[in-house]
């Protein structure tokens, strides 16, 4: 055979990111020198393993994380043997043999077999539902589990474990994280930053079991939970092991290459056999193994230099300064270098407890030796640059924690806003996208959105941690043309506004809170104390008679149908229709006060009687006695129709023009029991002297000789607002119709917790008039919808709870122990 014409044979063991990046770099340097064969254990083409977190979190599909297509292999003449791992290497014969029995000769061999998840020797690993977080198969198993099961346990609170936990949480599972030490990501974070991170993730709904040594995974056929060494048990239907990785070195060991923790490589990425190279997670360089993507790419470049070069090639890999960003959107964590100062170094720290910002720089000999940032990572690139270049920071050490802009303003360093970055400054570490590439794409493709930049350049399209930089660059490049992000959502659980949520509830026929949260992509599985009551009201309003009220999403007052007081006791206010009472009712109230030794009785501003200081467990009995005298709940505790205040009107008053009391009672009979975005108060005055103070009520009525004046949007609370005059009507029936229509419009359109006063200020009186006064048919429909909803609302909640054991459970202790 003529050696001049035979291409050298390169065999790559491992079809992952390190191996293929090396091949890519090699092809750039010399596309024809080698005939390349790639063996991979996984039955897939090469994909972006770090993007598995995004797949798990539902931000990407598996198809989107492929790095090289089959066509790429074909175009470059690479033979791919996927799903057929190499099982042995014969260094003498210079051949490898695969699992399927195929033996291939090599001139050069590249080991890039990566690593395997560390699996502790504990019972239960064989159970269904136990997996690692390493490859597509693991992610597919986790996604499948999330559709059928509710509870996940992630063992390991490091980088990988937290990304797994976040993904499972976003898949709708409840997630517990078991971590061996008391600090999350303790290899990247110090105690202070670890605690801040834990708090933030805890708020997002992860359950942490710290200092937890997993002793056993238990279950029948499927996993049911894990048991910790201290006796704690964590229930769960899926267990994801993410305690770390171990370099894959079995092949190297079997053929007597130098190994330690990893396959030992020199600065040229050669192993102890000069024809065999190793890169990526399986390699150990100067005593260090790496599990992150940046060092792997650096190794790939040097390795490709030597594969393409000869004995005179002198480039050397010098190790990588690691930096870490957590790929959990909205959690800003950065760390690089040393975590803590030692004998010869000091620490600078900045700790803003209110804003949850923590920064620490480890400084040695006037240079940065380590960086830990939490909550504000805007300066991470600057600190990293100073760390890498070993720059002297002494001239601005006293201000360095305030960031680059402050130091620049002091004239100590050149301002280095994104606009001043060099074109070859790498913005996106995952995809290796430099500033110049991005600005060029923005200009050529006329991009104005982050999404556009992602699609065209891949910058910020993987882990997303450079999103802020890309956005700044977009603004710096196109100025005001950059698309503004939307205003904030209902609460921290969603970016959707109240209006968008209500629209979707109606349009998508969403009929329960969990269904709504799932359909609309709520960030926290159970929502929070702010959105849950709002959703409960929106659903109740949208589906009267059909929606089943969710007690646990109501504020305690609406759940207990009484007003919680500062000492944890409750106040009880029975309804007094139109403020009118009688001897029987008063006697019953007096009896109740004596019987239950109620400490305080007061007349309210809404013409009713308030009994204060009732312990929760006495409420059902108090209600039963009041019910017996014909009294029902006054809803004095709810975002509901409260009182209808009246004056005595024409029946008694010498100035009275109409029977305001009877009008008030009729209004209260129609409206009682209705739920609203906020409390609603009505009043009816018998003459323009307005003794019932109708002009500071949500719906106020003032009698005049020729009929009734209707006023809306008043408020006597924190911010005094007099009503707007709506219109004048002639009959009692019209008052009822206008009132019902107005309240229904408010129920259907106002944001939860907006009183009618602020709602009207937002939509304008003219809008309300156009709906209620000008549009007769619309008014009648609104009124009809109000009455329809009232059919299901006018049940006395006190009677329901006083007379049913299951309903009254809420009010009694679960147990009493001595």
């Amino acid at each position, binding site marked *: 055979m003529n050696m001049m014409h035979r291409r050298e044979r390169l065999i790559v063991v491992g079809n992952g990111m390190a191996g293929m990046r090396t091949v890519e770099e090699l092809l750039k340097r010399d596309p024809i020198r080698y005939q390349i064969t790639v063996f991979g254990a996984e039955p897939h083409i090469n994909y972006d393993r770090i993007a598995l977190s995004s797949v798990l979190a539902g931000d990407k599909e598996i198809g989107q994380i492929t790095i090289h297509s089959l066509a790429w292999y074909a175009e470059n003449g690479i033979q791919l043997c996927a799903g057929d791992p190499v099982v042995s290497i014969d260094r003498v014969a210079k051949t490898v043999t695969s699992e399927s029995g195929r033996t291939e000769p090599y001139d050069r061999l590249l080991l890039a077999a990566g690593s395997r998840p560390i699996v502790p020797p504990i019972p239960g690993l064989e159970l269904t539902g136990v997996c690692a977080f390493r490859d597509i198969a693991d992610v597919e198993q986790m996604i499948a589990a999330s559709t059928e099961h*509710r*509870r996940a346990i992630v063992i390991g609170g490091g980088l990988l474990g937290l990304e797994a936990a976040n993904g499972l949480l976003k898949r709708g599972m*409840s997630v*517990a994280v078991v971590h061996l030490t008391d600090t999350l990501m303790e290899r990247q974070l110090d105690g202070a930053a670890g605690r801040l991170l834990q*708090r933030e993730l*805890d*708020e*997002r*709904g*992860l*359950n*942490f*079991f710290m200092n937890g040594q997993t002793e056993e995974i238990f279950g029948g056929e499927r996993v049911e939970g894990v048991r910790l060494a*201290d*006796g*704690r*048990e964590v*229930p769960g239907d899926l267990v994801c092991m993410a305690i770390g990785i171990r370099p894959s070195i079995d092949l190297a060991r079997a053929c007597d290459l130098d190994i330690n923790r990893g396959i030992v490589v020199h600065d040229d990425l050669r192993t102890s056999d000069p024809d065999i190279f190793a890169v990526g997670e399986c390699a150990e360089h100067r005593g260090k193994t790496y599990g992150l993507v940046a060092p792997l790419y650096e190794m790939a470049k040097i390795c490709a230099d030597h594969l393409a070069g000869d004995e005179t090639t002198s480039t050397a890999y010098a190790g990588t300064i690691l930096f870490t960003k957590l790929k959990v959107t909205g959690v800003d964590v950065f760390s690089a270098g040393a975590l803590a100062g030692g004998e010869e170094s000091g620490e600078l720290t900045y700790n803003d*407890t*209110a804003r*949850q910002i923590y920064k620490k720089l480890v400084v040695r000999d006037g240079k940065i030796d380590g960086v830990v940032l939490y909550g504000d990572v805007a300066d991470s690139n600057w600190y990293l640059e100073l760390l890498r270049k070993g720059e002297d920071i002494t001239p601005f050490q006293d201000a360095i924690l305030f960031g680059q802009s402050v130091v620049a303003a002091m004239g100590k360093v050149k301002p280095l806003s994104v606009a001043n970055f060099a074109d070859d400054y790498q913005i996106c570490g995952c995809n290796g996208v430099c500033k110049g590439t991005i600005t060029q794409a923005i200009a050529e493709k006329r991009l104005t959105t982050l999404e556009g930049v992602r699609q065209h350049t891949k910058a910020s399209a993987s882990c997303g941690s450079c999103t802020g930089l890309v956005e700044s660059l977009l603004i710096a490049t196109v100025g005001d043309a950059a698309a503004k992000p939307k205003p904030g959502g209902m609460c921290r659980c969603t970016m959707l506004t109240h209006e968008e949520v209500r629209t979707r509830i109606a349009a998508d026929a969403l009929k329960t809170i969990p269904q709504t949260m799932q359909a609309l992509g709520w960030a*926290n*599985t*159970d*929502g*929070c*104390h702010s959105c*849950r*009551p709002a959703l409960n009201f929106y659903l109740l309003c949208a589906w009267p008679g059909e929606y089943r009220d969710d*007690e*646990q*999403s*109501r*504020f*305690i*007052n609406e*759940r*207990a149908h009484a007003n*919680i007081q*500062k000492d*944890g006791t409750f106040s009880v206010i029975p309804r007094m229709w139109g403020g009118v009472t009688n001897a029987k009712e008063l006697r019953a109230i007096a009896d109740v006060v004596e019987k239950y030794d109620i400490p305080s009785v007061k007349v309210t501003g809404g013409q009713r009687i308030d009994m204060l200081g009732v312990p*929760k467990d006495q409420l059902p009995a108090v209600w039963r006695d009041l019910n017996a005298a014909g009294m029902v709940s006054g809803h004095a505790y709810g975002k509901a129709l409260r009182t209808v205040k009246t004056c005595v009107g024409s029946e008694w008053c010498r100035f009275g023009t109409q029977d305001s009391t009877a009008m008030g009672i009729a209004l209260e009979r129609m409206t009682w029991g209705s739920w609203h975005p906020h409390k609603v108060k009505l009043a009816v005055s018998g003459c323009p002297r307005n003794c019932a103070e109708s002009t500071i009520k949500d719906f106020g009525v003032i009698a005049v000789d020729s009929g009734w004046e209707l006023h809306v949007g008043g408020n006597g609370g924190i911010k005094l607002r007099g009503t707007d005059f709506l219109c004048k009507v002639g009959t009692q029936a019209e008052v009822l119709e206008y009132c019902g229509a107005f309240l229904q419009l408010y129920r259907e359109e106002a944001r939860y917790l907006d009183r009618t006063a602020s709602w009207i200020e937002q939509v304008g009186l003219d809008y309300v008039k156009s709906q209620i006064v000008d549009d007769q048919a619309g008014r009648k429909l609104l009124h009809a919808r109000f009455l329809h909803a009232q059919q299901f609302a006018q049940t006395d909640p006190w009677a329901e709870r006083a007379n049913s054991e299951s309903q009254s*459970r*809420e009010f009694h*202790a*679960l*147990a*009493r*122990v*001595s």
Partner: protein
Amino acid sequence: MIMDGMTSGTAWRDIGRLDEVPCLGSRVVATPRGKIAVFRTRDDRVFALEDRCPHNGGPLSQGIVHGNHVTCPLHNWVIALATGEAVAPDIGCAPTIPTQVRQDRILLLLPYAMS
């Protein structure tokens, strides 16, 4: 967590069935040392805290339970069920009581009455 119940003067006490505590809700256990709030999360995990918000003593048992937190009904402090710690920016801690669920019974680790 204290496991050697008897020697340290504590014991696991059965305080009721899991389904007697509403999902995403709470029930109270009365003890000589005050009330204990027992919470049940969506995934049937059970937590117990002394029923006093670290802020102003509000009854945590009456709050809205969401995820692994409860919001105090008095001033909306948010307390982590597992640790009793208030969520930032508030600072404070409600004492926790160890819990277990065995065959749908809830057990609390409570001081043992010596008498």
